[in-house]
């Protein structure tokens, strides 16, 4: 399981459930061996319904106030948390979408910022006092944004294509999109354009879809993906 990839609200729900079980554990539940009865620990969720606890189980109300989860008595907090996480993942097969998108349409990782952890001048300052955790957060969030762009780039449905065409059909791995050459005078349009203008031209013409809101989330994500694929390329505005 990849904790960093689970969305905020779901993460809060899991943390909440874990705390509940630690509380139950500390209150003096029986605690057989750590690994015992993991199968039995598989909680049965029944949305919106009250369940009746048996001699071997205990009812626990989830943080959302609606679901009651029935679990075996006497489990340690860790076993219980694992079981709950398993259950949550089964209910949310899309949870690892970033990892899956990366596996499917390999894209370049964001820049390595580990040099920022060197040197002493940052210490004691609000700006510049970075930790490893900061670096992980930046990379994770930037990558997630790019992954969203990749997902849209590869989907005619997301783009709203009327003819089942997606960007990758002409631009595998965003090849031949040359974002580093904008702004430039686009001969066919007779004016200077930005990358987003060309994206929307493609969306309207070869993809045959409604143009995207230039500041909307889909356009921002597409730009992010296309730019990310040109990591390391020299910027050369005006190049044809």
């Amino acid at each position, binding site marked *: 399981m990849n904790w960093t990839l689970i969305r905020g609200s779901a993460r809060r729900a899991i943390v909440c459930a874990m705390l509940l079980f630690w509380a139950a554990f500390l209150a003096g539940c029986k605690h057989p061996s750590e690994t015992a009865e993991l199968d039995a620990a598989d909680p049965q969720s029944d949305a919106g319904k009250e369940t009746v606890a048996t001699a071997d189980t205990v009812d626990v109300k989830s943080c959302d106030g609606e679901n009651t989860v029935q679990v075996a008595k006497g489990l340690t907090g860790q076993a219980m948390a694992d079981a709950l996480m398993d259950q949550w993942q089964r209910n949310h097969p899309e949870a690892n979408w970033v990892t899956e998108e990366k*596996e*499917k*349409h*390999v894209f370049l990782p964001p820049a390595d910022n580990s040099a920022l952890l060197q040197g002493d001048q940052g210490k004691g300052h609000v700006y510049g006092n970075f930790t490893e955790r900061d670096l992980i957060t930046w990379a994770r969030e930037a990558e997630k944004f790019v992954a969203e762009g990749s997902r849209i780039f*590869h989907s005619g449905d997301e783009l709203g294509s009327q*003819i*089942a*065409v997606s960007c*990758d*059909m*002409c*631009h*595998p*791995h965003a*090849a*031949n*999109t*040359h974002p580093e050459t904008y702004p430039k005078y686009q001969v*066919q349009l007779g004016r200077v354009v930005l990358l987003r203008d*060309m994206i929307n*031209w*493609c969306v309207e*013409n*070869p993809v045959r879809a409604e143009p995207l809101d230039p500041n909307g989330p889909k356009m921002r994500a597409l730009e992010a993906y296309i730019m990310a694929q040109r990591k390391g390329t020299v910027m050369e505005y005006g190049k*044809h």
Partner: protein
Amino acid sequence: MATHPSVETKYMEERRELFHGIRNLERRSFLKVSAAALGASAGLAYPHSFTPVSVAQGAEDTGSDQAFRFAYVSDSHLYEKDVNDRFVRGLLRAVDDVNNLDPQPDFVFYGGDLAQLGQEKELELGAQILKNLKAPLRIMVGEHDWYLDMGQKWQELFGDPTYSFDHKGVHFVVLNSVVEADFWTERNMTPMERMMTVAGLDNSLQSPFTVGQTQRKWLQDDLEKLSDDARLIILSHSPLYKLYKPWNFWTDDAEEVQAILNRFKNVVVIHGHTHQLLTNRIGNIHFHGVLSTAWPWPYAPEGMPELTIEMSRPDPFNPNDGCGDGEVHVHPDGLVDKIYNLWNRNPVSVTAAYTASGGSDSVPPKPNRPSY
């Protein structure tokens, strides 16, 4: 006002009639028809009337080492026409191009990826359009045709994807080079998920293309009877070498296949899949790509063969630019001139002289817009 056909019209009519006769001619009756045509034209007073002088060469071309030409159409990626009409129009245009060749090519070779998602209606539509070709069709399978139903519909329409035939002294072999190891069972994919995965050029979940052991054995057996100086042309969907793995511009067992072909003096491989001008030579094997009727691919960011003269980056504002069809002129020595009939540009010939000289002679025109 009485209408009289013009000199030009008369000329074209005679010419058409004559070539029509010759196309359907058996060798034995050749002289009879050409004599008749000569007689007919001799009786006409028009000074520029067509006489079959150049056709006399045809009489010499009946030996085992004669020159001939065939046409190609490839990678049409058809959806049903109410989903996407553009790709359908592309294939229709290519069929018109080929039907307008005069004289007609000996046959038309279709290079695979007739359908986009291997669906019955896509393949049926493709088969229906290809029936309009005047010349006989030889067809090969591509991954887009195969991975929805694992080739069931395609084979129902077109037969076995692996076969060989002889034409005017050249041995042709058609391979299914898009055999992928099972990546779908483990991932519990539906047939359409499997198809969509293979249909994504940059989708890394799929396996690399192979010819596979079964076909390699078949190829070995099929070529056994041929002498080392036999004229041999291999038709495959993927390039039978390793260019760029992330896009499956690649055949994973290419070395094994090449090893089977090593003993021959000259071998030509013509492949689909890459949708671009692409030329390579590995020892005795000369490789040529073909154009797509649907869209051009960018060039691989690395590993380009030295002999390839890339085509200029296509114009996104013209949906036909970088697309097209073409011809293959087969020489008596078995090497070929490869003609790229680009719809929005001058045609490009990659000649036998160019590949045979290792790129020093007959160099095709260089591009002015780079591929990124």
